[in-house]
C-alpha cells in the first residue's frame, strides 16, 4: 500500500513537472488558434483556424524557419560527430592534458553568449569571412559541442570498457569496434545529444544575431517581429515544428520497435535500441592488477 502511494506520488509529481514544462508551450499552441483582432496576439478573443489556413503566407518567415531547421540539422550532425569522438577520447584514454581538455570543453557553457557571439564575429571579420549561413553553422557547432560532449560522455562512462576490449579481442579494429559495438551501445546518448543540440541551435538568438549576416533564422525573425507584434503565424509554425518533432520521434520509436522485433525473431538486424543493463552485480574489482 505504502509502495503504491509512493509510486502514485512519483507519477503525480512527474506529471506536474512535465506540465510545468508545457505551460508556456500550451499557451503558444493555444494562441495559434486565437482570433486576435490587432497585430498583437496575447489576448484571447476566441477560436479560429484562420492562421492555420495560410501558415506559409509570409515567405520570409518560412525562409527563416527553413534556415533554422537546416542549420539545426547540419550543426547537430557536425557537433554530434565531432563531440562523440571527443567524448570517446576523454573517456577511453588516459593521456597527458586530459584534465585540461575536460575543462576547456566546459568553458563555452560558462561564457556569456554576447561575448562569444561578438568575439566570433570579430574573428570572421578579421579573416574577411562574410557572415551568413556558414558562419551561423560554425557558431552553432561551436556552442553545441560542449553539450554533446557532456551528454555522450555520460553514456560512455556508464558503459563497461571491457566491452570494447572484448570487440578488439575478437579481432575488431578501432573502426569496426566503434561502428559495431560502441556506437550501437551509446546510441541513446548520441540521440539525446543530437536532440539537445538541435534544440539549442533552433532556439539560439544572441550568438546567431552576430554571425547571421543577411541570413534570417526563426528566432531572429521573431525577435525583430516583436516591434510589429509577433504574428500568430509564428505560433502556427512553432506548433508545426513541435508536431513534426513529435512525429519524427514517434516514427523513430516505431522503427526501433520493429527492428528489435525482427532481431528478436532471428532476422539478424542490429537493433539500435536501448537495452536494459545486464542484471549482473559485479563485485568490487578484486584483481585490479
Amino acid at each position, binding site marked *: 500500500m505504502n509502495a503504491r502511494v509512493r509510486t502514485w506520488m512519483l507519477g503525480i509529481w512527474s506529471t506536474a513537472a512535465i506540465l510545468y514544462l508545457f505551460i508556456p508551450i500550451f499557451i503558444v499552441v493555444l494562441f495559434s488558434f486565437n482570433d486576435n483582432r490587432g497585430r498583437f496576439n496575447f489576448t484571447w478573443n476566441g477560436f479560429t483556424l484562420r492562421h492555420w489556413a495560410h501558415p506559409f503566407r509570409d515567405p520570409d518567415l518560412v525562409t527563416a524557419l527553413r534556415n533554422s531547421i537546416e542549420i539545426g540539422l547540419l550543426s547537430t550532425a557536425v557537433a554530434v560527430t565531432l563531440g562523440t569522438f571527443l567524448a570517446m577520447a576523454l573517456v577511453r584514454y588516459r593521456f597527458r592534458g586530459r584534465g585540461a581538455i575536460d575543462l576547456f570543453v566546459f568553458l563555452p557553457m560558462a561564457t556569456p553568449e554576447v561575448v562569444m557571439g561578438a*568575439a566570433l564575429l570579430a574573428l570572421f571579420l578579421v579573416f574577411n569571412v562574410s557572415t551568413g549561413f556558414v558562419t551561423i553553422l560554425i557558431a552553432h557547432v561551436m556552442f553545441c559541442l560542449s553539450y554533446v560532449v557532456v551528454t555522450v560522455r*555520460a553514456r560512455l562512462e556508464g558503459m563497461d570498457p571491457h566491452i570494447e576490449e572484448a570487440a578488439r579481442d575478437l579481432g575488431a579494429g578501432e573502426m569496426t569496434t566503434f561502428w559495431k559495438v560502441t556506437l550501437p551501445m551509446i546510441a541513446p546518448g548520441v540521440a539525446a545529444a543530437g536532440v539537445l543540440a538541435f534544440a539549442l541551435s533552433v532556439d539560439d538568438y544572441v550568438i546567431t544575431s552576430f554571425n547571421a549576416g543577411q541570413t534570417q533564422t526563426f528566432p531572429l525573425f521573431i525577435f525583430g517581429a516583436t516591434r510589429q507584434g509577433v504574428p500568430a503565424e509564428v505560433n502556427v509554425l512553432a506548433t508545426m515544428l513541435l508536431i513534426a518533432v513529435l512525429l519524427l520521434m514517434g516514427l523513430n520509436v516505431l522503427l526501433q520497435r520493429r527492428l528489435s522485433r525482427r532481431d528478436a525473431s532471428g532476422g539478424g538486424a542490429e537493433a539500435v535500441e536501448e537495452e536494459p543493463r545486464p542484471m549482473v552485480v559485479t563485485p568490487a574489482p578484486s584483481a585490479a592488477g
Partner: protein
Amino acid sequence: MSAISLRWRRSLLPWWFMAPALIWLIVFFAVPLFNQLNVSLMSGNADAGYHSTWAFHTYWDAIRTYHVQFLRSLEYAAIATVIDLIIAFPLAYFLAFRAGRWRNFLLLLVIMPFFVSYVLRTVAWQLILNDNGWVADRLRDIGLVSQHGRLLATSTAVITGIAYNFLPFMVLPLYVSLERMDRRLLEAATDLYASRVTAFRKVTVPLAIPGIFAGSLLCFIPACGDYVNAALLGTSRQYMIGNVVQSKYLDVLDYPTAAALSFILMLLILVGIALYGRVLGSRNLMEAAA
C-alpha cells in the same frame, strides 16, 4: 616498425579522435576568447578607440561597480538550480525506472520547450504570471502573494523563468545517472525508503551524485550568464550580470568592461564548480560531471 614508433602512434590515437572537435573549439572559441582577454585589458573609449594598456584596473572597477549584479546572478542561478533539482529528481527517477516504453517520448517532452523560441516562451510567461491572471489571483487567495502584490516584475518571476529555462538541463543528466544505476540496488533502496528516509538519502542520492553534479552545472552555469529572464520578467532591480554584459557590449560599447565582466563571471563559475565538486566529494570535477 619499431616499438617506440608504434607506442607513439598509439599514444597519438586519442588526439586523432579529439582533433576535429578541438580544432573547432580552438579556432572558433579559444582564439576569439583570447582576443577578448586582450580586449579586457585595454583602455580608452568607444570614440577614440581602445588600446592595449594592461589595464587590470578594469577588473577591479568592474567588481566594485557590479558586485551586486554578480551576487544576484549567483544567487538567482543557485536558487533556480536548487528548485530544478527538487523538481527534476523525482521526474528523472520516474523516467529512469517507471516510465517503461514511454520513456523516450517523455524525454523528448522534457526537451520540447527549446523548440518554441524563447521570445514566445517568455511572452507566454508574461501572460501566465500577469497581475490579473489566474495564477496571481489563486496565489493571492491562498495568501502566498499579498493582496496588492504581484508575480511579474519580481525576483520570483525571474527565478521562475530561469528555473523553467534550465530544467531540461537538470533532468537529462540526472536521468542518465539514475538510469545506469543498478536497478536491484535501487529497488532495495526504495524498499528501505518505505521504512526509513535515511536509506534513500544514503543509497540513492549518493549513487546519483554524478548526475546531480552534472545537472547542477548544466543548469547553474548558463543560468549565471542569463539575461533574457531578468530583462523580460523582472525589473532593473532584478538585472543580472548578463544584462550588464549585454548593455556594455551593445549600448555602451564598453568592450573592455564587458570582456572583464565575462572573465570574472567565468572565473567565479569555475571557482564555484571546484568548491561544489569538493563538497560533493568528487576529486576530478569533470569526471564526476559526466
